[in-house]
């Protein structure tokens, strides 16, 4: 087992009488893009809440670089499902939010995020309010806010779930390109199987509640990737496997 990166060992979590996470063991190596795929309501977001510290596990261990979480040793940059931009802050101040929370002054924080607006396709929109931006731009602003915190790892909770299909495809391709340049350590949560295959180095497939890891897939596509690569035999094999398990094995085991 690698010691650098994130490790979850036999993690379980219940909410009252409802067991949400049954037995989760997984790891994310440094510089790796890992995705968790699973049916809706399987507790995927609960895993992220355990990592951000919003919830605490009932059993099991969460380690980052070999040390248990919660001692303030690991810093995750979290991107929630909906963009969670503050409507009263201009885009530049939304992007700088994490830096301000870290203790930087507003001017200093703004100066630090400003150069990133061009690569994120947001130049010219610094002084706009979130309501003035399209869904795709809002999501890019939310990702910019996440990245700029320069933390050890990104946690992405279905970041493109609320976008229309075309915008989503564009965002996936854009994120893939950004990731190929920066190699952020990232954990993505999604129920979009194609998105998982396209973006990830590895994929964990979760069962329904109480969630367990059903299978682990390596995605052998080379980088940088293009959406057309999803048509390759390897990509389609993984996609079919995942869908097969999600649709058939899952329902069969429940009946």
């Amino acid at each position: 087992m690698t010691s650098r990166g994130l490790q979850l060992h036999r993690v379980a979590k219940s909410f009252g009488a409802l067991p949400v996470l049954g037995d989760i063991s997984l790891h994310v190596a440094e510089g790796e893009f890992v995705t968790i795929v699973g049916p809706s309501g399987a507790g995927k977001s609960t895993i992220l809440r355990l990592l951000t510290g919003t919830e605490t596990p009932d059993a099991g261990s969460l380690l980052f670089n070999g040390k248990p979480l919660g001692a303030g040793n690991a810093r995750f940059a979290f991107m929630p499902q909906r963009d969670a931009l503050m409507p009263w802050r201009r885009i530049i101040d939304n992007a700088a939010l994490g830096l301000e929370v870290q203790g930087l002054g507003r001017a200093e924080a703004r100066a630090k995020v400003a150069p990133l607006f061009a690569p994120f396709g947001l130049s010219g929109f610094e002084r706009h309010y979130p309501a003035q931006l399209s869904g795709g731009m809002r999501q890019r602003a939310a990702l910019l806010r996440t990245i700029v915190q320069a933390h050890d790892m990104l946690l992405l909770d279905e970041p493109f779930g609320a976008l229309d299909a075309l915008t989503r495809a564009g965002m996936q391709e854009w994120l893939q390109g950004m990731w190929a340049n920066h190699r952020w350590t990232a954990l993505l949560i999604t129920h979009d199987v194609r998105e998982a295959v396209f973006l990830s180095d590895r994929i964990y497939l979760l069962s329904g509640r109480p969630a367990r890891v059903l299978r682990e897939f390596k995605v052998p596509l080379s980088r940088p990737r293009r959406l057309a690569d999803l048509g390759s035999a390897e990509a389609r094999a993984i996609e079919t496997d995942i869908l097969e398990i999600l649709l058939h094995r899952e329902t069969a085991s429940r009946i």
Partner: protein
Amino acid sequence: MALLSSSSARSAPLSVLSGVLPAAGAILFAVAAWELYADLSGIRPSILPAPSRVLTQAWLNRQALIDNSLPTIRATLSGFACSLAIAFVFSVAMDFAQALRRALFPIFVISQTLPLVAIAPLIVLWFGFGLLPKILLVALVTFFPMLVALLQGYEATDKDVTELLVSMKASRWRIFTLARLPSALPYFFAGLRISITYAVVGAIFAEYAGAARGLGIYILTAKNNFRPDLVLAAVLLSAALTLICFAAVVLIERMAMPWRSKEGDGSQ
């Protein structure tokens, strides 16, 4: 009519005008009907004065009206300011301490069930004819709506935003100032718009129960002297005061929430 139909689609001032015109027309019509009735029916002005008489008498008695408005304005604004400050402090404390909220909220609800008619003379009896009882009564009628608006506003904070700030390891106080307080602004201003109208009425009511000067006591005296024209003149003035306060609140609201006026435009 041609003016109306063309303006509604075009420039902003004209469309504002077309929004106001129906209301202005309705008021004008009612006043005209009242004037005609008062002039033609032969009813005595000491029962129902015509609008024209109300206006002339208001002008003739302008000095007395202004002298009596100033204490009312003072009572309204200071009472409202006190109420706002106290409501804010309590709302913050109650947002941070649920126990405090459970302890105090029922008391505040009960304070709203007290009939003002009975309370106002008592407060005057206890605190005299000065400014203090007016401030207390204005605060009594406006405190609760403001407190509820603020508490509700804090609760309306987007759960995702809170979770995001928790993931950034923001302290409870930072979460309050960065997310909960700005989230409460729309609720705060909605409450402010309602309670500023209560505030003027509250001040006049307090003066009615006993005061040396003020619109409330002026109304009472005019009524006792069989001068309904002066009563109505004072009522008109108090309505104008309320409208001015209301407009001021709307103006402050616009300035405090610049993002609201830009919502919806430019999203592709």
